[in-house]
């Protein structure tokens, strides 16, 4: 009985101590907003993992193609015309001109001199194509005649500055095609969009991640969660958090 009273007294004393703390200003209600805060934070904490390797091809006008095709570089660092065309045709996502920030666009390149009066059908031109070290053209392609898609390259077209143009109006240099930059992303590429959100609630995109995210944001803004862009739900989540 004495022990029970002792426990009761201790219990009351603990409560008195607690009330004294309350009288001194300690809150009597402790609020845990963990659930709400975690919901907000999770919108920023999501991460994107892309299981397969992919490339983003950017041209000098800010258009972009995203795909997994191969693009080989020539010894001069330019890309082979046939690779560019194949990549563009098989791209999973295509973004129009102006989609990519200037900092990601390729540098200007050296142009080959263009002769608009050049006759494609003469023997000299045939030999020139056969010896083209871009490897774009084969004898059969050349002999197939006009109307063939590849044959479009055999007709010399010049821009206003006298540069030879490919069928996409990009200037062809002596060794490969210029006007493109290719960004490669390895398999299991990971990016956390929230890392590129400033405290002020705006994007601060940089590096290869920045290019990927800038296109992902554009895609998400157009397609929302319905899109097939890898990690689009994460992007949408962050956009929702930012109120964009």
């Amino acid at each position, binding site marked *: 009985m004495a022990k029970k009273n002792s426990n009761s007294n201790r219990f009351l004393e603990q409560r008195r101590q607690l009330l004294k703390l309350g009288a001194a200003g300690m809150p009597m209600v*402790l609020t845990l907003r963990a659930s709400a805060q975690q919901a907000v934070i999770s919108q920023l904490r999501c991460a994107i993992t892309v299981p397969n390797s992919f490339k983003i091809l950017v041209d000098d006008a800010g258009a972009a193609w995203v795909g997994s095709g191969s693009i080989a570089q020539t010894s001069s660092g330019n890309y082979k015309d046939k690779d560019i065309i194949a990549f563009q045709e098989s791209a999973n996502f295509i973004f129009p001109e102006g989609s990519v920030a200037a900092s990601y666009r390729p540098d200007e390149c050296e142009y080959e001199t263009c002769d608009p009066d050049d006759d494609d059908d003469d023997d000299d031109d045939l030999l020139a194509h056969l010896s083209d070290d871009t490897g774009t053209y084969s004898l059969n392609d050349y002999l197939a005649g006009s109307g063939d898609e590849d044959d479009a390259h055999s007709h010399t077209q010049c821009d206003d500055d006298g540069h030879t143009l490919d069928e996409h109006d990009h200037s062809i240099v002596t060794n490969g095609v210029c006007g493109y930059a290719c960004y490669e992303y390895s398999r299991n590429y990971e990016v956390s969009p929230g890392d590129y959100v400033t405290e002020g609630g705006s994007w601060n995109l940089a590096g290869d991640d920045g290019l990927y995210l800038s296109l992902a944001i554009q895609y998400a803004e157009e397609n929302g969660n319905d899109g097939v862009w890898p990690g689009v739900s994460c992007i949408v989540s962050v956009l929702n958090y930012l109120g964009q």
Partner: protein
Amino acid sequence: MPAGPYSDQTQWLANKDQIILRQLDDATVVFHKTSGDTHVLNFLSLAIINILSNDAETFNSAAPKILLEIGMEQDDCPIQLIKDTFLQLDDVGLIVPRVADE
């Protein structure tokens, strides 16, 4: 959010339909459905919730009942502390002042 200023005639209510209570030793965890927030109450704040969930009370009418509920005297639990706790509960929406036409 508090909608004060309040007077001694202000009546207070706690809507138990809007909360889920779980007792953990001498503390009580309460989830407030309206705000989505979770709160930890001690025996005093819980007593206020219990008293005000039975019927609307003014502070003066509720205070003696609260002291009785917690088994303490006013010497141990100052009236001002009870009043402050009212405001804390009001601040998080666990109790609300009754509007005039209710």
